[in-house]
């Protein structure tokens, strides 16, 4: 029943409850879809047996009328989440063979809610990248292609495998992580919905760490409602994560009232950047018109330190990464390259085990934290971060939610922007500020570029106000009525 893979998560949930089909049938359809999408290289590890076993248990519960919140719903998991008994690689050679003996909190919550695991998705190594081309397992391809062209495009990154899988209908939803834009940017490039919740909303326990003050887990799906459903299951206080926020998890799905009358939508002046394509500007205007048409009020706001967000991020994130990646030394797990001394073993292992971008960032991070440079770089960046965060606090006195484009362009070709790391970093110019401030952000597909590629709009909200972000996103989604499909999806 291939048509099952085309359902939204919410539709599948209802279909299962109404006994229109079984969880086993749904899992089989999705497993077929994962196989059909192999050309995209979106998955590092497929877990069909586990999916079928989980689906059978879901069916048993559903038959008794004891269905759990996500019972029977097949999901793809970014290969940065530790999944017990299943290879977890972070797309790195240095984690060869690593099979966790414990489960990340976020995935444990998903399985406890009855969800079904299709496999582990491909990503940029250690979540460092915006293209999903920096993977030991090869690049991921975007299921979208430019009209009339054959060149493979990037899905964005770092959660490109998850975004591509959902776009290709190989999974009703997926998990990702977002440190500087790694959920929102690939969501935009792949024409799906992706959300980064407030820092602290989801537990980081069991997620391979990149930058501890920035990393956040979040959902991908094809609709805003689906993301709300997934986020509700993923979120929650975890005493095993010292940065986990002890706040109630609201009913995110219930927040989708469709009503934005009187809502104040902030339009930040500084997000009009040079080199931003005309069609991005046009889509942004269109988003403003849609929200005003629904009764919201737009207000011009200023986020004066926006242009410093990227360089600030590229000090803080590599610095934190250099500390988090110090544990990969060939001693306890993964790759070991021998050496005559222990130091040589460390140096050889890390030289061979880490890819180019990871090495660049670890070295930058080591430099900016080193004696004599710490104040000039790291401390300076932390002060700039305070200013960026204050910009948002002040803006949220005038606005309830902020509307921006998600990315400065649509998806680019695999192989482009590889010569200059900075050109690649600029992909995250609109997403990084919300990461630095720890604020919730969502990207939803709002239209197509002239070349037929999806373009996303981003909404940013106050800390722990995912409800307003989701509510507004739901209204935009209805207005945009985005129903385009990628060329290389299921059943093509």
């Amino acid at each position, binding site marked *: 029943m291939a048509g099952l893979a085309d359902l939204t998560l919410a539709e599948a949930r209802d279909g299962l409850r109404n006994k229109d089909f079984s969880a086993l049938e749904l899992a089989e359809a999705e497993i077929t879809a994962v196989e059909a999408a192999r050309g995209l290289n979106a998955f590092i590890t497929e877990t069909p047996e586990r999916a079928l076993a989980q689906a059978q248990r879901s069916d048993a519960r559903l038959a008794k009328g004891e269905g759990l919140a996500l019972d029977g719903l097949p999901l793809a998991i970014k290969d940065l989440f530790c999944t017990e008994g299943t290879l977890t690689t972070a797309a790195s050679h240095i984690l060869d063979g690593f099979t966790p003996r414990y489960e990340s909190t976020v995935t444990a919550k998903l399985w406890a809610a009855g969800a079904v695991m299709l496999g582990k998705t491909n990503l940029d190594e250690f979540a460092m990248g915006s293209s999903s081309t920096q993977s030991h397992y090869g690049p991921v391809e975007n299921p979208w292609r430019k009209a009339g062209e054959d060149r493979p495009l990037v899905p964005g990154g770092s959660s490109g495998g998850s975004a591509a899988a959902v776009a290709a209908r190989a999974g009703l939803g997926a998990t990702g992580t977002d440190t500087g834009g790694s959920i929102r940017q690939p969501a935009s490039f792949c024409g799906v919905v992706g959300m980064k919740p407030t820092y602290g909303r989801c537990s980081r326990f069991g997620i391979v760490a990149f930058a501890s003050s920035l990393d956040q887990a979040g959902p991908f799906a094809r609709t805003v409602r689906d993301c709300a459903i997934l986020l509700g299951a993923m979120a929650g206080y975890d005493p095993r994560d010292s940065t986990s926020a002890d706040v109630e998890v609201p009913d995110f799905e219930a927040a989708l009232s469709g009503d934005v009358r009187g809502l104040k939508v902030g339009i930040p002046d500084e997000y009009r950047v040079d080199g931003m394509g005309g069609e991005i500007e046009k889509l942004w205007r269109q988003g403003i018109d849609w929200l005003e048409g629904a009764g919201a009020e737009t207000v011009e706001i200023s986020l004066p330190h926006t242009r410093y967000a990227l360089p600030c991020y590229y000090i803080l994130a590599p610095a934190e990464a250099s500390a988090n990646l110090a544990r990969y030394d060939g001693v306890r797990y993964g790759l*070991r390259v021998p050496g005559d001394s222990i130091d040589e073993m460390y140096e050889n292992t890390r030289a061979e085990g880490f890819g180019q971008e990871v090495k660049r960032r670890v070295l930058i991070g080591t430099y900016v934290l080193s004696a004599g440079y710490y104040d000039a770089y790291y401390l300076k960046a932390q002060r700039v971060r305070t200013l960026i965060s204050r910009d948002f606090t002040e803006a949220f006195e005038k606005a309830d939610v902020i509307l921006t484009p998600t990315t400065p362009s649509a998806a680019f070709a695999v192989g482009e922007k590889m010569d200059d790391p900075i050109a690649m970093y600029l992909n995250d110019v609109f997403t990084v500020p919300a990461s630095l401030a720890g604020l919730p952000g969502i990207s939803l597909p709002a239209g197509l570029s002239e070349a037929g590629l999806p373009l996303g709009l981003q909404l940013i909200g106050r800390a722990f106000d995912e409800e307003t972000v989701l509510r507004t996103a739901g209204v935009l989604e209805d207005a945009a009525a985005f129903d385009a499909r990628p060329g290389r999806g299921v059943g093509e």
Partner: protein
Amino acid sequence: MSLDKATVAKIARLARIKVPDDDLAALAGELSNILDWIEQLNEVDTRDVPPMTHVAAMKLKWRQDEVTGAAPRDDVIADAPEERDGFFTVPKVLE
């Protein structure tokens, strides 16, 4: 900020990543470019601005001082590249 080969070699040593001599110059160039781009932060007046060490206003929680379990040794040692008698083995550390 221009990094010379010697500085890159020193950073590589601190990060315990072996960089072959032939690659040092190119790497110095790449890293210098990134550091030059980062220099623009110096345009920002940050006098009297406290560094942001934590994104949200949160206090660290305390827990009860009791044993809540330990990871079983077999689990911990399971992926070891080299192990003997339940210990990780490495090249000799002490002279």
